[in-house]
């Protein structure tokens, strides 16, 4: 099967219009035109007339769940969600940042999403191995089947095999590139802290200047804060102007968390975030 992006776009428009007209949603978080076709933008439709601006194509990578916390509690929001995006919504519901009843989830089953910079297909890197939304109210298209569902963790293999010296050298080089623009945390649907720990003066966790140690502190702590919460949308890496493959580290932590705690982030509304939870019979082996 092939994905008709045009078809999804049409359905997105139809549903957005219907929801706005009926008042079921006061805002629709979707995708709109950017300065060219390869650069669409996150788009918020507030009126039925806005719907005409909605687009959907293979470059609409944005995780629109990121914008949910921007709206006051109780706002009826319809949000377009691809596979990973829906997990972000679930995770936000778990964390009580949004309420399920305030949301209409417009599920988008899709594969073949591309990085506009490299034209590379990025599904395997950052969809958590999923093509269909985990949770939705309306599915805009047919479920994707038959695509090779790879383990979301396959891409890690090469890095796991590296010896620790090489791995350290790899990450040091990557983190040293960081200019601390914080696009990663701002693009992340789960990074809703304001202020972020790294911005604090008291306690001061890391220096503001983009030097190795402050960068390391910022990124490692951020990985920790997202442990058991990262839903593998890859927005952090995509947002990064200097191409730090943050998603790899997040994925590794997600993998470890899934193995240790038997739960992947954003898969069920009923779950409790793994790091603010415990089981009495958690094994001490996880500390080895």
């Amino acid at each position: 099967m092939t994905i008709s992006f045009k078809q999804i776009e049409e359905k997105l428009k139809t549903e957005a219009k219907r929801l706005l007209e009926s008042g079921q949603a006061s805002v629709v978080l979707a995708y709109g035109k950017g300065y060219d076709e390869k650069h669409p933008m996150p788009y918020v439709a507030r009126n039925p007339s806005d719907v005409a601006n909605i687009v959907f194509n293979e470059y609409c990578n944005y995780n629109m769940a990121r914008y949910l916390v921007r709206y006051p509690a109780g706002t009826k929001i319809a949000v377009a969600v691809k596979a990973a995006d829906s997990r972000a919504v679930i995770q936000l519901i778990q964390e009580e940042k949004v309420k399920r009843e305030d949301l209409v989830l417009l599920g988008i089953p899709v594969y073949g999403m591309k990085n506009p910079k490299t034209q590379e297909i990025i599904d395997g890197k950052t969809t958590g191995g999923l093509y269909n939304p985990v949770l939705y109210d309306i599915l805009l298209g047919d479920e994707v089947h038959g695509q090779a569902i790879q383990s979301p963790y396959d891409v890690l293999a090469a890095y796991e095999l590296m010896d620790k010296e090489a791995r350290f050298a790899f990450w040091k080089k990557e983190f040293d590139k960081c200019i601390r623009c914080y696009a990663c945390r701002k693009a992340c649907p789960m990074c809703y802290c304001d202020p972020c720990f790294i911005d604090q003066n008291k306690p001061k966790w890391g220096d503001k200047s983009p030097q190795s140690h402050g960068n390391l502190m910022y990124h490692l702590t951020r990985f920790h804060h997202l442990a058991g919460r990262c839903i593998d949308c890859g927005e952090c890496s995509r947002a990064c102007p200097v191409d730090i493959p943050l998603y790899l580290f997040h994925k590794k932590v997600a993998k470890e968390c899934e193995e240790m705690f038997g739960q992947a982030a954003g898969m069920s509304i009923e779950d409790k975030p793994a790091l603010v939870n415990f089981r009495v019979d958690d094994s001490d082996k996880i500390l080895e």
Partner: protein
Amino acid sequence: MSRIGVFVCHCGLNIAKTVRVSELAEFAATLPDVVVAKDYKFMCSTPGQEMIVNDIKQHKLDRIIVTACSPLMHEQTFRKVLTASGLNQYLLTIVNIREQVSWVTHDIEEGTAKAKALLNGAVYRSRLLVPLTSRVIDVNPNVMVVGGGIAGIQAALELANTGKKVYLVEKNSTIGGHMAQFDKTFPTLDCSACILTPKMDAVLQHKNITMMTSCEVSEVKGFVGNFDITVRQKARYVDHSKCNACLACTEKCPGKGISEWDESLVKRKAIYIPFPQAVPQKPIIDKESCTFFKKGKCRLCEKACEQKAIDFEQQDTFVQVKVGAVILATGFDLMDTKPLVQYGYGKYPGVYNALEVERLFNSAGPTGGKVTLRDGSEPKSIAILHCIGSRDKNNHEHCSRVCCMYSLKFAHLFKEKTSADVYHFYIDMRAAGKGYEEFYNRIIEEDVKFIRGKGARVAQSADEPGRLVVEAEDTITGKFIKLPVDMVVLSPAIVPRADARDIARLFNLSTDKQGFFMERHPKLAPLSTMSEGIFIAGVCQSPKDIPDTVAQAYGAAAEALTIVVRDKMELEATTAMVNPASCCGCQNCVRVCPYGAPSYNAEKKVSEINEALCKGCGLCASVCPSSAIIARHFTNDQVLAEMEGLMEF
């Protein structure tokens, strides 16, 4: 820009031997913000304390670092020094260079270097300390005593006599505990019942004591001064408010259960009081042995009861009790010696454990005080084996402390009641106590045979069926002995109650390696625990004899009294608080707090912490992603600074 005073203690030679204290003080003087640094022989002594007071005044010090023993030892002492000098007590930092430096090394170079690093950490931390105000709370004047043995009874009576209301919780249907099972007590050989039962009765009669038998603590909430404890009243199937203790029911009862009181040596009725002097004198029904509960009909007791007190429908109920302090006196169990198959307990009828023998001696016991074997015959020779499972690296390393003495007592009683030969198999004889050595000498005189060697094995006699053979190495002669006897008495290890760990968890106590409750300090605070307001007395802390147990009960009562005698008390100010400006509203704190102290204010979109419920563990602070939670006295920046100081040199 603090003004820090550093005071280095020699602790005699305890510290000075492996830390160059004057060098340490000189080092301190070079550190930024340290205004004065001194060393002194005993900082905790009055002149030492006065030195600190004077320096605070003279040098306008605003932070004090005492470099001495563990904070668990003298933090309070020095906090008082600060308070007396008008400084907030939380501006004190203790550097532990005794327990964690001088006592754990012989190398003065290493010791001095480590002490410097620790001190530097303290200076870094000290700069960031802020004055904290203690919370003042109302104190509930009541006390709960858990365990109705001699320790619990004594503590309850003492407290009740001061006018405080006491809840005495006992899981059995009578109070009295192990002591009520004994016949005589060493070394005076006075009758256990004679000295105990008046106290039991006094408890029953005391207007300030609420006796809660057949009860167990099921939940503990709150904190010192304000415990909120849920007690499970187990169903007795007899309404004690109606029962007039005529015991007509017990006569009619056809049911047969095994008497726990008599250490399973005999049977008892299904509706019963454990022993004639039980307090209360009111029966309970044992569901397991009751014919009605087993077969659905009988109800003979019900018919016999004029008071209509029998209630087969009775359920467990839960009672809420509010108290200001708690004394735990939950006592002990004897180690189950069945797993030590070499001693044949449970296999050979001639092998008894110590408590069984106590019952045999007791005139209210299964044999009416006669010493007979299970077949009714009188033993001709008896071996008493000391240290079964205790002082034994494979089982319990500790000495059970009373076995030597009660074993000697047994020997005496055997001699008094039978004509048997009595042999002691012992590792060595421990008779430290008032009149104990004298008692030992007296027993030696009584023609009791002492074999210095631990009983290694008890076997069936090959030559004489029905008799037993005790095998041991006589360590004096070096000979291997096989001694045929009729009766073997094991003196097993005294161990914590089977449910001691559960109780520890309920009350937030630590237990030691053996499972006995941990005291706050082995010497200076043997009755307090790490949980404020929870005290311990008797064998639940460690094996001990009756005089020590009673002494501890008095002590624990006094300790509890120091809390409940006050209307109000100060609590540690080291609670957590939320900086609303940094709170991101993730509610992690709300999710993790074991005490429900944080709550989410949906309107302000920030968490708030109820400091009355906060116990200061700091969990919330570490799960707070935006560092909005300030764990007072252990704030992120204080810990980070201390780490920086520790790692500098």
